[in-house]
């Protein structure tokens, strides 16, 4: 399951979801409730948006892997995510 969170409005998100036609679930967080509670707000240039962080959460609800770059130009691609999934061994549960 892949969840994406950003400060975009639902209108924008639903438009994107429609165009991407992928299994990705995009969630709007315009009031930054999720982003703030995760400590991922980035206020550089006064733009209150999320840092480009990625987390893999195991079936038990605990964080198994995270990627939190200090440089927002660094993003993860599909290959990096697949590699991350391969590097994690969940006990008895396949991802």
């Amino acid at each position, binding site marked *: 399951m892949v969840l994406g969170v950003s400060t975009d409005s639902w209108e924008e998100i639903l438009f994107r979801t429609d165009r991407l036609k992928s299994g990705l679930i995009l969630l709007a967080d315009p009031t930054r409730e999720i982003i703030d509670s995760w400590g991922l707000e980035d206020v550089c240039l006064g733009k209150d948006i999320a840092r480009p962080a990625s987390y893999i959460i195991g079936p038990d609800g605990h964080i198994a892997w995270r990627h939190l770059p200090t440089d*927002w130009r660094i993003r993860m691609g599909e290959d990096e995510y697949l590699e991350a999934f391969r590097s994690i061994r*969940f006990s008895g549960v396949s991802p």
Partner: protein
Amino acid sequence: MASRMPQLKDRLALWTWCITTFLGVVCLLIYLPMSTNPDLEALSESPHPLTAAFLMATVISLVCCKWLLHRSATTQHLASLLRMGTIAAVLGCLSYNSYVYAFSQTLPDSDAPEIGDLAIDFEVTDPDGRHCRLSDFRGSTVLLVFYRGNW
């Protein structure tokens, strides 16, 4: 009065201006379809600094062209066009790169959850009333991605 025959440097100026403008238009034609492409990979690999520089030069050149239409264009005017275009290109390139550099390195330390922590639960509702709660996905693996939006 200037000689009717263009000087070598004027012809150079003219040609350089033509090439800069041509490259700017090419960059624009490449960049515009990319900016509406939902494929993030393609956008992140586009030559942003060069594009910015050439676009800036082209815009200045075209604005100057419009201004020149009201006057008799000489190669000297074109030479000044080239100068303005070049300065704009250099400024565009420098400001773009300094912007990217200055604001990409200054992220403060974060108290974001670490590996092993329990994922902080949240629940959101979309305009159609559909709920999504993180803890609903217990039992399966979740890739949670925070992105900057506006793409």
